[in-house]
């Protein structure tokens, strides 16, 4: 816990930094161990391409962990992209392996036998573990919480000690207040509530649709994959809808300072910019389904 050595022990800041460092190290170790397991599996098989790629993943992850640990702000985006790439590789490998086991779609049998071991994902449980581990790591280094707070503190960024009334990484009021009426702040609060409910509803819908798609792959592979894809898109749409909830609610709970209003608008802008891509995917999958139906008829 070297990063916290300079802070006075047992202060809220010190405790928070220790929690942050512990969480960051735990996430990093989980990601690292998942690659070690899968690379060892490639060695036992043996699959030399998988082994070489697995070694590259281990070295890459070590490099990013080290870079992140230095506190460098510019390390966070490449590290997040690296974690995203690892999640995508684990996801593709695991799905192809599951397709081989459960015989969903014969189109992917051939590629399923060669690609996952070459991607250093030669074991379903290992692949799932890698996905979970890198997702936790990605969450820790991108979302406001003790781990990101610790990294920012290490990088020398101005961060305030968190307390029950001022959560970490908070928005700083500018002093310029937008004099909203109670009815107008109520609308912001209502929006936060609706976003939260819609997020959960879309996640549930996406989960069920993905399961239904998976069930149908064996009988109607193309429509099954399209339904599965739509389910995943709805699931992600639900997850991202939850992101602006806290910021939007702040307008009612913490005041109508333009900083809070701006923070809510930034988060809403982020939601909609991601929604553009997801809706595009939804349209593409829908058009694919429409073409399949027209071709069938």
């Amino acid at each position, binding site marked *: 816990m070297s990063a916290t050595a300079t802070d006075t022990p047992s202060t809220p800041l010190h405790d928070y930094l220790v929690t942050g460092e512990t969480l960051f190290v735990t996430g990093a170790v989980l990601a690292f161990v998942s690659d070690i397991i899968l690379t060892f599996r490639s060695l036992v098989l043996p699959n030399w391409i998988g082994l070489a790629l697995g070694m590259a993943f281990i070295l890459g992850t070590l490099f990013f962990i080290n870079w992140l640990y230095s506190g460098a702000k510019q390390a966070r985006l490449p590290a997040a992209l690296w974690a995203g790439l690892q999640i995508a590789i684990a996801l593709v490998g695991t799905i192809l392996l599951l397709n081989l086991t459960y015989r969903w779609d014969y189109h992917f049998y051939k590629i399923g036998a060669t690609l996952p071991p070459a991607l250093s994902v030669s074991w379903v449980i290992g692949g799932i573990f890698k996905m979970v581990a890198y997702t936790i790591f990605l969450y820790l280094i991108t979302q406001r919480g003790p781990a990101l707070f610790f990294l920012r503190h290490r990088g020398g960024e101005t961060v305030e000690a968190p307390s029950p009334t001022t959560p970490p990484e908070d928005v700083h009021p500018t002093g310029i207040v937008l*004099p909203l*009426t109670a009815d107008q702040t109520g609308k912001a609060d*209502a929006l936060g509530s609706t976003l939260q409910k*819609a997020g959960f509803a879309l996640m549930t819908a996406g989960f*069920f*649709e993905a399961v239904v798609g998976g069930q149908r792959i064996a009988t109607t592979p193309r429509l099954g994959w399209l339904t599965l894809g739509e389910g995943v898109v709805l699931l992600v749409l639900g997850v991202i809808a939850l992101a602006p909830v806290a910021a939007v609610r702040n307008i009612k709970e913490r005041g109508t300072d*333009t900083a809070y209003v701006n923070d809510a608008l930034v988060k*809403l802008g982020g939601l*909609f910019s991601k929604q553009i891509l997801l809706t595009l995917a939804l349209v593409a999958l829908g058009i694919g389904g429409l073409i399949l139906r027209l071709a069938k008829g």
Partner: protein
Amino acid sequence: MAPEPTATFSPEQSTTVNRLATSLTFVAPLLLLAGFVRIAIGVVDIVHGQWSGLLAIPAGALLAFAGLALWAGASDAKYLHDVKGREKEHLSNTFDSINTAFTALLIFGCYEAFLGFINMWV
């Protein structure tokens, strides 16, 4: 002569509002299109004798309605950016439009979740 109304948002905050308006301008027609595609799928299914296609039409209508509400939201956000001195009203309208769109998406989510749950066992 009436004094020029002053801007409540700083130039940086104003850029944020503009970015939101731009994002909404793109996402609204896409949601509308996604809704129409779903309705078209329902119609094609019905034409092919599959009455289950009827179930896709309300889902498509809800998606299209969400798109329309966000389109209104895009205009509100644009006014919020362009019209100085009336930020309160336009901010409130923007939140209102987004709220309406997400209420439609909430109903869409519940409807799709219900259909998905039933389809899992059929």
